[in-house]
């Protein structure tokens, strides 16, 4: 090891965050429940997200059972089917993916990777989780109110979302959904402020922006976007609540519903869609950018090679983040908005393909001439590349305005977004859990169970969603409880639906193995040690594993290099941690 001269002690104070600023827990309750430690909050976020995600997984089974075997399961009637798809979509996009990437990984990794003791506003951070939990409970309450949860589709388009022709439309279901979203957004804002300001102000000495791991870049950019995009959903939700409860006409035009004239008039359903997608499109990247960042670090670490083109990767993240705010209307090509917008939004949408493609090239070029360890995180990273490239490329169909016309609102869209923002980010989440579980618990996840989990999930998910594109190409519309007799539903399409359903059940079952592994390895996993992957980033350099409250013991780390010094020529090992300086010339001369 390098000898650090004692004079450094004079220049680097022992603790950069004064002890008084850290809230020290005094009881079991404040340690594990009302904790202000970002790591505990991260675990709370993750467990809650995974729990409600399991509900959404079961819902997807139920809807697949209906699509594969229509009419066979009588308890799945049309009302229930629409409630299932709506809750499945909303839970997966917001309450699982967003919460897990930002609330879970963000909370765990930002302070540790940046060499901070905690988030900058721990109290707000704690509130953020409790509001999130409340939002989840309010959402889940929808299953227990008369009329059930809303069945308006996760896009909640008015007028149908708040009319009686939609399940839960004139009852508690839609209200609970909107209230839950509002709570989620308030809670997220509290957390989001923490993530952003901690990156701005909480970095250790020497941690310049260009030395940050791409994980942090991804989470940071996604959080900035989320802070600016979620207000649009907030505004849309509040206005829809007003239309429903107080009888205003923000989104509600004159309507004759089942022969009855309603009191509304003049409102614009398109206005809702603009607000919704102004949030909804950045949301795609709010999920994707953390995944991009994390997968970069997984590939780099497990291929023992620096991420190729780090600067380009950073710029691409920032450019994608900025561009994603001016593409929202590509979800609305056939919405009836001014068709001339199509030219603009098709162009901006396809421009985004360029920085995104560069990211893909840089991931695969990192593999080139690497030293690829086929660990489970690496397998998931490879699975991510395949599914993301596939889903990203079908995005070029849907983004290209006129190609979208026949394909919009068909199963092609369903297949596309599941591949690109369902399967691909989930691959990263799994890879990340296998990667960081040893740091969180001190033990490795079981390797054999992990491999089974990966292969079933990856191949199964691919087999679900790749063929599904062709159902859409055939013309099968999405959100159909049953297609019945139709030119777009030949017997062969029915066989394919059966196959997809069987695959969905299989992939779902594999997740049970994963959950079992999570619990089993807590006790029986191999001891991991502090840095099992021999990684460079700071979270692997903590004095103890799992890191305690305050993360770093007495002294904060000092950063001397970027996050990707793998296989540096001449270095004794194939990695150099970020907190390791070049040997001081003076001390080397003294030594010799």
């Amino acid at each position, binding site marked *: 090891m390098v000898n650090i001269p004692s004079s450094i002690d004079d220049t680097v104070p022992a603790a950069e965050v004064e002890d008084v600023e850290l809230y020290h827990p005094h009881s079991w309750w404040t340690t594990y429940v009302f904790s202000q430690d970002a790591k505990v909050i991260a675990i709370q976020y993750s467990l809650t997200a995974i729990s409600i995600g399991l509900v959404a997984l079961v819902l997807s089974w139920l809807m697949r059972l209906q699509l594969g075997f229509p009419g066979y399961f009588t308890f799945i009637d*049309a009302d229930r089917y629409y409630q299932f798809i709506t809750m499945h979509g909303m839970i997966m996009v917001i309450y699982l993916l967003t919460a897990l990437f930002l609330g879970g990984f963000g909370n765990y990794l930002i302070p540790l990777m940046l060499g901070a003791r905690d988030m900058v506003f721990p109290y707000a951070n704690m509130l953020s989780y409790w509001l999130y939990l409340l939002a989840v409970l309010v959402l889940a309450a929808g299953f227990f109110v008369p009329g059930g949860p809303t*069945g*308006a*589709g996760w896009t909640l*388009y008015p*007028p*149908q979302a708040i009319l009686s*022709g*939609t399940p839960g439309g004139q009852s508690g279901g839609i209200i609970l959904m909107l209230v839950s979203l509002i709570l989620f957004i308030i809670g997220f804002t509290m957390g989001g402020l923490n993530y952003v300001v901690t990156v701005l102000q909480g970095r250790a000495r020497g941690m310049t922006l260009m030395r940050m791991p791409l994980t942090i870049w991804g989470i940071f950019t996604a959080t900035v976007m989320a802070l600016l995009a979620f207000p649009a959903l907030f505004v849309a939700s509040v206005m829809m609540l007003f239309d429903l409860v107080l009888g205003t006409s923000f989104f509600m*035009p*004159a*309507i*004759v*519903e*089942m*022969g009855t004239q309603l009191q509304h008039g003049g409102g614009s*359903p398109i206005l809702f869609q603009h607000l919704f997608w102004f949030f909804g499109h950045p949301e795609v990247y709010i999920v994707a950018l953390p995944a991009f960042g994390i997968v970069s670090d997984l590939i780099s670490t497990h291929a023992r090679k*620096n991420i*190729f*083109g780090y600067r380009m990767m950073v710029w691409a993240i920032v450019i994608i983040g900025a561009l994603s705010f001016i593409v929202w209307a590509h979800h609305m090509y*056939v919405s*009836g908005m001014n*068709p001339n917008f*199509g030219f603009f939004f098709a*162009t901006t949408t396809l421009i985004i*393909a*360029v920085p995104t*493609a*560069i990211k893909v*090239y840089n991931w*695969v070029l990192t*593999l*080139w001439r*690497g*030293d*690829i*360890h*086929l660990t489970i995180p690496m*397998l998931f990273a*490879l699975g991510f*590349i*395949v599914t993301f490239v*596939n889903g990203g490329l079908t995005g*070029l169909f849907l983004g*290209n305005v*006129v*190609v979208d*016309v*026949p394909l919009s609102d*068909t199963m092609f869209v369903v297949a596309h977004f599941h591949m690109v923002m369902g399967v691909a980010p989930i691959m990263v989440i799994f890879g990340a859990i296998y990667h960081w579980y040893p740091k969180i618990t001190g033990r490795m996840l079981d390797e054999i169970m992990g491999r089974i989990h990966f292969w079933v999930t990856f191949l199964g998910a691919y087999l679900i969603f790749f063929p599904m594109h*062709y*159902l859409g190409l*055939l*013309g099968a*519309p999405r959100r159909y*409880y049953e*297609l019945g007799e*139709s*030119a777009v539903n*030949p017997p062969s399409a029915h066989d394919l639906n059966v196959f997809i359903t069987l695959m969905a059940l299989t992939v779902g079952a594999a997740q049970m193995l994963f959950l079992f592994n999570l619990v089993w390895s807590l006790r029986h996993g191999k001891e991991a040690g502090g840095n099992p992957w021999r990684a460079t980033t700071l979270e692997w350099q903590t004095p103890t594993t799992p890191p305690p409250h305050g993360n770093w013991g007495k002294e904060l780390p000092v950063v001397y290099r970027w996050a990707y010094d793998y296989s540096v020529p001449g270095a004794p090992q194939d990695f150099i941690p970020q907190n390791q300086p070049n040997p001081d010339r003076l001390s080397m001369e003294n030594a010799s």
Partner: protein
Amino acid sequence: MAVVLILVLVAFASVLFHLLSPWWWTPIASNWHYIDNTIIITFWITGFVFTAVVLFVAYCVFRFRHKPGNRAHYEPENRKLEFWLATVTTIGVVAMLAPGLFVWNQFVTVPSDATEVEVVGQQWLWSYRLPGANGKLGTSETRDVSTENPLGLNKNDAAGLDDIIISGGELHVPVGKPVKMLLRSIDVLHDFYVPEFRAKMDMVPGMVTYFWFTPTRTGTFEVLCAELCGVGHPQMRGTVVVDTEADYQNWLQQQQTFTQMMAGEVQTTN
């Protein structure tokens, strides 16, 4: 090695699936084969990129997987390579976007000789209105919708009195003539979607949207609703028949006008 084989398999099986898939678009019945062509171009470009990337990854895993004593190459970046890749990508994107925008321009430019046909959506039923002898559609208003006047036509608008109303029946259009579909809804969002025509557009209460197409072959086609409109969404089907000119005129003669319909209502209520 299993990883390499499976990756190669994924790439080839995907291409094979695409080539052999029995699930392909329905035989086209309108002038929008331009759209199909653009999709084909996009399939070629994206299919090539997908196969290339997956095979490249497979090769990397095969060639550079860890063996004792291996060490990764150290190369932080290669501006030249990145520049070329970005350029080639841009060219690929332009190759897809340019025809797309070109066809979109055709899609939004309605020919002046197109006949207007109005489609009215409601939960969960399609109705249609054709201009009468004067060739013009009268005005309408959702507020005027009632059981006697299901499409909400303005009774004081002379232009609308001879409009032909098809409430819940089949729509016929003549082959070979451009049609401008005017789309209207009186309750929630719907979307008039005939897979064989390729074109579709949402119907939004409170406004009139449109698209146009020219039917190119006769036949009977199914209308589906493509925008979730409540629990009856999958049942909202209709039928469009593309007729020869003679058959079309025959059919047209049998339809009732707005005036006839109102009179019929009066008689039955009396």
